């Protein structure tokens, strides 16, 4: 069974890794619902899909709001059917030294990066259980394994999603649903463009392959996990970081 015709929900699909994942799964024939936080972001996604001949649309979603998640699921259900592939990709950073980190900086990141995974996975599981097939793929970060000064909030969430995946994989494995985590290293996106040349040089010196990764190189691994080729992998974290961190 390929993913052709299956409905895939990808959060944070307007740019970067999420956009590449949405486009990749779309090119494999899945119907994609890509979410963005703003109306204009959602429209951009819809336009990109149309241009690339991908079935699906962009929709607005606030992953920190349970009502927003519920209404998204309802509209997806009515328009396309139940999502059997969920890619929890949406994430933010609010970096600061812990000594200077405000409660808001801590809880905003926890809520968007970790609690959202609870909300979305729970909302999508019903349909997956009925279908006796499902794929939940969380996008984590190498920082969740390696740590990074100034990112205690972000690193906590990224390690957290991997633990979540292991527990949920055991809960729902008997229903043909796999739950995995993909942990990208330094990928060439807007998030990493903000780094200074100096920081970049330092980063590159730690990467065995000596270059940043491309979003498509993450998308291909997500596509593998979603496909039949990845059907016997569950509860695992796949590291995709050019040899920056080897587990």
């Amino acid at each position, binding site marked *: 069974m390929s993913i052709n015709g299956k409905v895939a929900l990808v959060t944070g699909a307007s740019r970067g890794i999420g956009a590449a994942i949405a486009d990749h799964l779309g090119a494999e024939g899945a119907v994609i619902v890509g979410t963005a936080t703003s109306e204009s972001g959602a429209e951009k996604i819809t336009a990109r899909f149309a241009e690339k001949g991908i079935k699906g649309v962009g929709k607005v979603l606030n992953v920190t709001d349970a009502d927003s998640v519920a209404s998204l699921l309802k509209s997806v259900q009515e328009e396309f059917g139940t999502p059997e592939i969920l890619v929890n990709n949406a994430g933010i950073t609010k970096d600061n030294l812990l000594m200077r980190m405000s409660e808001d900086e801590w809880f905003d990141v926890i809520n968007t990066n970790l609690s959202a995974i609870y909300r979305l996975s729970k909302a999508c599981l*019903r349909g997956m*259980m*009925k279908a006796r097939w499902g794929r939940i793929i969380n996008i984590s970060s190498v920082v969740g394994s390696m740590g990074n000064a100034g990112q205690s909030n972000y690193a906590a969430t990224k390690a957290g999603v991997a633990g979540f995946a292991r527990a949920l994989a055991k*809960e*729902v494995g*008997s*229903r043909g649903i796999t739950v995995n985590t993909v942990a990208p290293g330094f990928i060439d996106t807007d998030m990493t463009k903000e780094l200074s040349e100096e920081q970049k040089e330092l980063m590159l010196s730690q990467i065995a392959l000596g270059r940043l990764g491309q979003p498509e190189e993450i998308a291909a691994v997500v596509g593998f996990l979603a496909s039949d080729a990845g059907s016997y992998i569950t509860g695992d974290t796949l590291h995709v970081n050019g040899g920056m961190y080897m587990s």
Partner: protein
Amino acid sequence: MSSIEERVKKIVAEQLGVKEEEVKNEASFVEDLGADSLDTVELVMALEEEFETEIPDEEAEKITTVQLAIDYVNANLG
């Protein structure tokens, strides 16, 4: 149209893969009918669909026997 009791028992039998005659009113899903915790979640999902309703999580947890399921449906939807 079958009675609520018959409809509940039919769903229990289908969901848990047991014969309808085994589905006695006093039967416990877990102890008598071999359900695990995820089976009971699915059973409640199936009841929600059959009776076109939403059963809140805190209520769903209390539905542990066939009779309790019948009682719930009768009290809330009858």
